[in-house]
């Protein structure tokens, strides 16, 4: 009898395991919160793009952006840059949080952030700056 119970558990657990593995094959990124963040970031990118190109701002290794060289900014943009960077970073952090939470694993937030950090840099245009262990590097 015990043998039966035991093998039943083994089979049941094997089945459960495989279904969980399958369930983890894709991440849902179409929640309303994520869509809202995406369009907010998309709109802001028009303002940020020239500053990436001039090297005034760069991509950090933790998936955010930072002011790298304020002297590369035209005078008219110097005052607003900190608020612009802060708004972008707030959206980015929320995005990582929402992706993790939206898929039922809030504890994945850090890994989502790390994944994004690498992908932002991979997809950056040449001439943009990104952060490495030693400091800023021009792509």
């Amino acid at each position, binding site marked *: 009898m015990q043998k039966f119970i035991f093998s039943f558990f083994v089979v049941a657990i094997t089945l*459960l395991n495989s279904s*969980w593995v399958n369930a983890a094959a894709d991440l849902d990124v179409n929640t309303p919160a994520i869509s809202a963040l995406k369009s907010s970031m998309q709109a802001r990118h028009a303002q940020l793009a020239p500053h990436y190109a001039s090297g005034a701002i760069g991509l950090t290794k933790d998936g955010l952006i930072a002011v790298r060289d304020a002297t590369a900014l035209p005078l008219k943009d110097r005052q607003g840059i900190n608020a612009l960077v802060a708004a972008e970073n707030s959206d980015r952090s929320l995005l990582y949080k929402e992706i993790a939470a939206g898929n039922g694993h809030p504890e994945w937030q850090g890994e989502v952030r790390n994944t994004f950090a690498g992908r932002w840099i991979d*997809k950056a245009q040449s001439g943009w700056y990104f952060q490495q262990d030693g400091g800023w590097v021009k792509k």
Partner: protein
Amino acid sequence: MNKILSLLALTLAVSACVTINIYFPAAAAEKAADKIIDEVWQLKDGATVPASKPAETPAK
């Protein structure tokens, strides 16, 4: 004895289960990241805006 063994096996199996359940789907995350970055940076439609467009023909 048999009972203890099967309990032990069950505990192991359940913990293995939990381990798999919290495994981070790195490949899926990269795919999701690419999709979002393409949209935010508008890399797919219209591609990148050329920095200096030769609008006028240079004077000779």
